[in-house]
């Protein structure tokens, strides 16, 4: 785990040194399909994966909690 955190720190330092892309150059990055978040409609997919797989993340289940025990 410590190695992974150090890797994260190293990556953060490395990525932080990248040349900045100006606002007017972000037309491709601002495309909705380039967003680093998931779409709202994808929440159901995330929910059933959190229910059926043991490796659920920061949330115990569906939006707002829930056991997902059925």
């Amino acid at each position: 785990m410590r190695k992974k955190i150090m890797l994260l720190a190293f990556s953060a330092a490395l990525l932080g040194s990248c040349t900045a892309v100006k606002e007017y150059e972000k037309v491709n990055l601002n495309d909705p399909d380039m967003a680093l978040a998931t779409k709202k409609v994808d929440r159901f997919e995330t929910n059933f994966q959190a229910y059926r797989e043991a490796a659920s993340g920061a949330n115990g289940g569906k939006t707002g909690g829930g056991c997902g025990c059925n």
Partner: protein
Amino acid sequence: MKKLTIITSLIFFVLTGLGQEENKNTDTTAYKSRVLESTEIDILTSYYSQEGDNAAVGGGMGTEELTDFTPTIVVSVPLNDDDVLTLDAGISSYTSASSSNINPFDGDQEADPFQASSGASRADLYTNVSGSFSHSSDDRNKIWSAKLSFSNEFDYRSLGFGGSLTRLFNEKNTEINISGNVYLDKWKLLYPVELRHLAGQDEEQEPGEDEEDDEDEGVPWELMTGNLNYNPSFTPFKDDSRNSYSVGMVFSQILSKRLQGSLSLDLVVQDGLLSTPYHRIYFADVANSFIENFQLADDVERLPDTRLKAALGGRLNYFINETLALRTYYRYYADDWGISSHTASIEIPIKLSGKFTLYPSYRFYTQTAADYFAPRELHVSTEKYYTSDYDLSEFKANQYGFGISYTDIMTRAHLWKLNMKSIDLKFHKYDRDSSFSAWMGSFGIKFIIGDL
């Protein structure tokens, strides 16, 4: 403690280092656009169906048939230039063969783990509501948010709250988000029907059942076969709470005019009742008792009352050209129950025109088994912890997805004062390397209120 120091150092290092970049390059306070121009309404719904032969309620054997229909509404309201209030509410209506077999004797047909009981416990509702508030600074480089949530189903109640802080640096090329969430959950302890007399629960109400509707509650003991001296060493749980505490950090970076990515770290601590009270266990060293075709439980699953989870993930999105983009994701997970997992997924949005986009996707998932998992009749009664829930077993899963999206940025279609902005339709097929499979269809439509 050492991990906490490393994480704190990392956060400090990145915040201070990149803050200097911000001072050099940012002067965006002259003009301030609204964070959200108009009220947005998302109406979302999904239909989910699964099947399999390893129901945890049947101690690792029995039908896992389940369907779930979930209509949801999300409303985001701009309170002023800087603040947004979001309300999110949903109802999930499910039918579950598995939960119906908490009491397999309340139906019209013979009790059988591969047959859903037709009793009232076959269906139930899950409701959830949450509200969040976010505030952005004048230069839009600092955002904080707070969230409160509540959910309820027959045997489970959850109260959650949390917050997050986001900072943008380096001409908004770099973003760091730190979040924390707490869920305080409460069980209504519901045991398999044949064990309830040992917990003083003879008249216990079941999911979907009216308070008066308990005429079929009884276990037909006179039909018992096999070991007629059924005397399980069952003791009820003392604790009915489950608490989850999580912290997360996401570092996002623009890497070029076409490439951006993020790294995320999640840490979760859970305590309380982490077992499910109606998951049956069948021991190898206890003689078997049956009623009709249903084997009576020797105990319910017993799992440790704490769990520490850690997940490290990364996303990388590449804009190939005006038609194609590439969205990739990887996540590694490990916990102190012995489970580790890898998730990898790829989605390739294909723009057919300015309005229509296709979303083919593939996701691979694999996990190792929990230290406490074994199939039915392989645990022995002298073990401290045991489960036959196949969600905690070793498996691999493939998921194939396809979606289509229609977007009209001019919002020309109207419904009363609602201007339609987009429609999304998605379909997913999920297959484990066992008998378990599932599919899901989801639909979303976004409206914007008011003149644009």
